């Protein structure tokens, strides 16, 4: 204590202890001084922002939570419950359409299949996101099988009643497109990236043409191709499910982006790493799998997650080719005469859903980067 209070004290050389930093440079006081009140301009900005927050947050909280109405049968009933009509959110509308937002027009008797798929999805995510899960090896085998199990459950056949895919909608549809796209685009993208930098000219050429073609065309155009033109290229008589076509297009689209992100990561792995792996006698595939890709993918995490988030949000584009994702359901619900005019609630609800998913992905990627950092 005494020493800390008196840093001027004399010590014989070599015996100087580590003293705590002065009080004004640590703790919340120092933080506020550094970040909120470090200069006159900063002080003004702090005050202005504090005033803005004070004037914005209470009305929002009021609109969303305090005065909002959660149960009612129509907007008129909703407004009747408020202090002033239209003065707060009418969540009763979302509440009454919740099943529609989640399942789309999936037959009511079969909705348990969607629920089971959702539980399976959570079980699929656990071993992927949590690398210390017990028996992870077996879980991962299940993970590879999951997309096919889920596809069987959702679409039916082999003992289950078939559900036409155009009845799948809402959040279910978003998750199907998002998860399938993410699951398959990563391996395809990595293969394309390796192909593009390959020494074999034919392979590299093929990958370049594919990547540049897909990247050069808007996703929406590819979706139109999927919905209208793809049947012309297929042998006559074969019909190819629209959802399937959309899935393939979304997958290829994000695979092309992933490929470029991963290629950036591959180029950032120092030459010395390739040489050390080669000098050891590892084969090309061993050195790619054990040395180069783990490092390249780690570097590419921010870009990969960025692409995934983009893909997840782009799933809303299927609205344009007539599929009923949450936005499509929202628009359909708004055309109901007893609820019309509640667009704010609908779009806010959808925005919150997408935000939670995307923000979750973004936080997870930060956690992963931190975990994989080994001090180099």
């Amino acid at each position, binding site marked *: 204590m005494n020493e800390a209070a008196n840093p001027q004290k004399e010590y014989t050389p070599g015996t100087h202890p580590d003293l705590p930093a002065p009080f004004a440079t640590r703790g919340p006081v120092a933080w506020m001084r550094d970040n909120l009140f470090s200069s006159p301009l900063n002080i003004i900005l702090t005050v202005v922002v504090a005033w803005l927050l004070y004037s914005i947050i209470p009305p929002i909280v009021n609109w969303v939570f305090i005065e909002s109405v959660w149960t009612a049968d129509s907007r008129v009933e909703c407004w009747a419950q408020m202090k002033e009509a239209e003065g707060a959110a009418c969540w009763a509308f979302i509440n009454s359409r919740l099943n529609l937002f989640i399942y789309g027009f999936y037959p009511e008797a079969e909705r348990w299949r969607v629920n089971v798929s959702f539980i399976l999805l959570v079980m699929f995510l656990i071993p992927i996101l949590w690398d210390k899960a017990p028996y992870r090896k077996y879980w991962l085998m299940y993970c590879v099988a999951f997309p096919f199990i889920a596809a069987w459950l959702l679409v039916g056949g082999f003992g289950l009643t078939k559900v036409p895919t155009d009845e799948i909608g809402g959040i279910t549809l978003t998750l199907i497109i998002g998860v399938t796209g993410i699951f398959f685009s990563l391996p395809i993208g990595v293969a394309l990236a390796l192909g593009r930098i390959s020494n074999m000219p034919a392979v590299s050429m093929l990958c370049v043409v594919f990547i540049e073609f897909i990247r050069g065309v808007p996703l929406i155009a590819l979706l139109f191709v999927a919905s209208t033109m793809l049947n012309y290229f297929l042998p006559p008589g074969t019909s190819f499910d629209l959802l399937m076509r959309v899935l393939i297009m979304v997958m290829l689209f994000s695979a092309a982006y992933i490929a470029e992100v991963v290629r950036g990561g591959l180029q950032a792995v120092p030459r*010395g790493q390739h040489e050390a792996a080669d000098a050891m006698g590892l084969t090309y595939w061993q050195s790619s799998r054990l040395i180069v890709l783990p490092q390249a993918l780690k570097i590419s995490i921010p870009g990969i997650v960025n692409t995934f988030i983009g893909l997840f949000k782009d799933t809303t584009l299927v609205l344009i080719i007539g599929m009923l994702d949450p936005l499509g359901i929202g628009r359909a619900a708004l055309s109901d005469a007893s609820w019309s005019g509640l667009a704010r609630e609908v779009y806010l609800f959808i925005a919150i859903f997408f935000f939670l998913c995307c923000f979750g992905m973004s936080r997870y990627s930060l956690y992963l980067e931190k975990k994989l950092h080994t001090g180099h």
Partner: protein
Amino acid sequence: MSSTEQSSQAAKSSDPVIVIKNMHKWYGEFHVLKNVNLEVQRGERIVICGPSGSGKSTLIRCINRLEVHQQGHISVDGTELTGDLKNIEKIRSEVGMVFQHFNLFPHLTVMENLTLGPIWVRKTPKAEAEETAMEYLKRVKIPEQAEKFPGQLSGGQQQRVAIARSLCMNPGIMLFDEPTSALDPEMIKEVLDVMIELAESGMTMLCVTHEMGFATAVAHRVIFMDFGEIIEENEPHEFFNNPQNDRTKLFLSQIL
């Protein structure tokens, strides 16, 4: 020094393990290696020196085909180096290499760095590979760092791990490409000590270095290269005290 003399006896008997004949290499238009001829006996230790850009690193990198030569022949342990991938992988697994910048795998622990080659190339069971790895870590005097990542070690420690990593493959030949050039002065000695110990065990070594003390202590032959050619070669004492060629004299006067 008796063990050194013994292996020097071994080196004199004719059992060439590396044979390089009339070898040329170009980088694009640039002629880096010009008509290189070199025979290395089993158990022989050679130090290669020369000014920067003289082709000395390129020469030893040709021996495990990190660089491809365009003319002439290189054979290692009786196997001719050609484009044949199987031969290249076989030779690489018999020839250890230590790099200037260590090139440890940063995403793997020290132990994983050491066992990777034995497990994947030699198909050694993991437990056995780890046991061997631990022995070599003890030999380079850092067994306590086994579970750390390379980024947490000092340069000298990293280079010793890199040497141990090569030794885990149980190579017949070791190539050193300026192993101490990227190290702080106080760390050079710990790496050289490990290399001297290795030399005394009778390992065939080719070492690109400017550590003349090391050359005098362990080398059977010193080779001087300039402009892609072997200018002069001699046993260390003669080489340093009585250089023949003017370029060698100039080079030695600059570094000594």
